[in-house]
């Protein structure tokens, strides 16, 4: 049986006695783009933060690329694991005290086998070329637009060549045109680097462009699953709200 990119079983997480995720199960196949849909506050971001161990789940199993992530405790093991799983934050999370180039350099210079300077330069150039922003090297994040910010953040994440990408609402706060560009960029990068992705969104255009498969969270569990066309043609009134 082929190894799954991600396998989550019975994941539960609550805050202050309020259970948000009540038993999440899903598998992500290698090379697949899974879109997770749900209303605000249902725990979509919590789910992917559990996968990168930014949040500890209360219960359940998470296996990523064949590794049970509960067994990862030492800093070195965790760091090595996290380099295989890229995470694009909702706001981009660029380091605002650093230039774009320094942002790109940061993760590379902290690799255990740090590449030489030529290799770092090459990878920065390639990453910026991928997102079409080669001329922003010396700019500070505050000088960039929202869309450029997201692109650079994506480039910074991809520079470590992760095998899995987790996107936390990649198009939130962007105008429809930029949002569409980012969605196509996600698809392009996934195709180029053969990654598997989980995309958290409530932007239906983004879901339509990027999803191979979609899952919808309702009341702390996955209530619906299928392709974009499957879900959009369902009669469920609650689900229809997303597509209207």
């Amino acid at each position, binding site marked *: 049986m082929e190894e799954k990119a991600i396998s989550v079983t019975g994941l539960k997480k609550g805050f202050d006695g309020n259970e948000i995720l009540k038993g999440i199960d899903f598998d992500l196949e290698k090379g697949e783009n899974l879109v997770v849909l749900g209303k605000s506050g249902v725990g979509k971001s919590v789910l992917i*933060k559990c996968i990168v161990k*930014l949040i500890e789940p209360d219960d359940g199993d998470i296996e990523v690329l064949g590794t049970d992530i509960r067994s990862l405790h030492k800093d070195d093991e965790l760091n*090595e694991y*996290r*380099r295989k799983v890229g*995470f694009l*934050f909702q706001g981009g*999370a660029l*380091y605002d005290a650093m230039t774009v180039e320094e942002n790109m350099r940061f993760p590379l210079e*902290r690799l255990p086998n740090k590449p030489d300077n030529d290799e770092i330069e090459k990878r920065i150039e390639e990453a910026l070329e991928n997102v079409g922003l080669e001329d922003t090297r010396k700019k500070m994040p505050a000088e960039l637009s929202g869309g450029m910010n997201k692109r650079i953040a994506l480039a910074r994440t991809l520079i470590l060549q992760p095998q899995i990408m987790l996107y936390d609402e990649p198009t939130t706060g962007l105008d429809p045109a930029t949002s569409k560009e980012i969605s196509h960029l996600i698809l392009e990068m996934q195709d180029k680097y053969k990654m598997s992705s989980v995309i958290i969104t409530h932007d239906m255009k983004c879901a339509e462009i990027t999803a191979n498969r979609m899952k919808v969270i309702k009341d702390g569990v996955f209530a619906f699953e299928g392709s974009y066309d499957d879900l959009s043609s369902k009669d469920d009134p609650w689900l229809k709200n997303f597509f209207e």
Partner: protein
Amino acid sequence: MKITESLPDSLQKFLINIAGIGRYSALFFRQIFRGPLEIREIINQSYKLGYQSLFLVTTTGFIIGMVMTLQTKPTLEQFGAESWLPAMVSISIIREIGPVLTALVCAGKVGSGIGAELGSMKVTEQIDAMTVSGANSFNYLVVSRVIATSLMVPVLVFYADAVSLIGSYVGVNLEGDVSVQLFYHQSLGALVFSDIVPAVAKTFFFGFAIGIIGCYEGVNASKGTTGVGNAANRAVVISSMFIFVIDLMAVQLTQLFI
């Protein structure tokens, strides 16, 4: 019922804060020994924290030296002990006022700056971004800043002491005529080993407290802009309080051992 549950909420929060700062200090020392240190970031932070505080430290140091001299002079004149003025001022400045005042100025400027900077990094998920990129965010953000404050506060105190003595010299000469040589001969000649060593030693602890508290409050800021403001505020209040506690302990230890 646990004892802690019977305490008022504010006291519980305060104790949790203190315990958190203790845990952070332990993590800091563990990281120092594990290495590797972010040398470039330590230099960068030392420059930022030290150089950017220079104007404030110069101004406060000069004024304090001058004011102390002008306030003390009339009293000493009544006893005909004017010649004791340089010695008295220098001992007060070097033993107590220079270190404590400079540390408080740094707590206000540097501590709040660290709290606000890390707080805003926390709420905009920049710290999480560092963590998920496989970098050691504690090493980069906390260890480098704490080392920088621990090294730079003593340097700033030394500088502030020197500026205060210049202020004192100016104060003496506003209504008199004392030569530079005589003033410094009297003021520095009055200092002994037990005045200088404890005063220097405690400044490292002041710097450490300012750094570790600023970092702890910043990294643990709650969401939103209010959270960042509160983190900066708590960084100043708690580190100022720690400065007085460390000072008290230093005085007690000095009396015991020296």
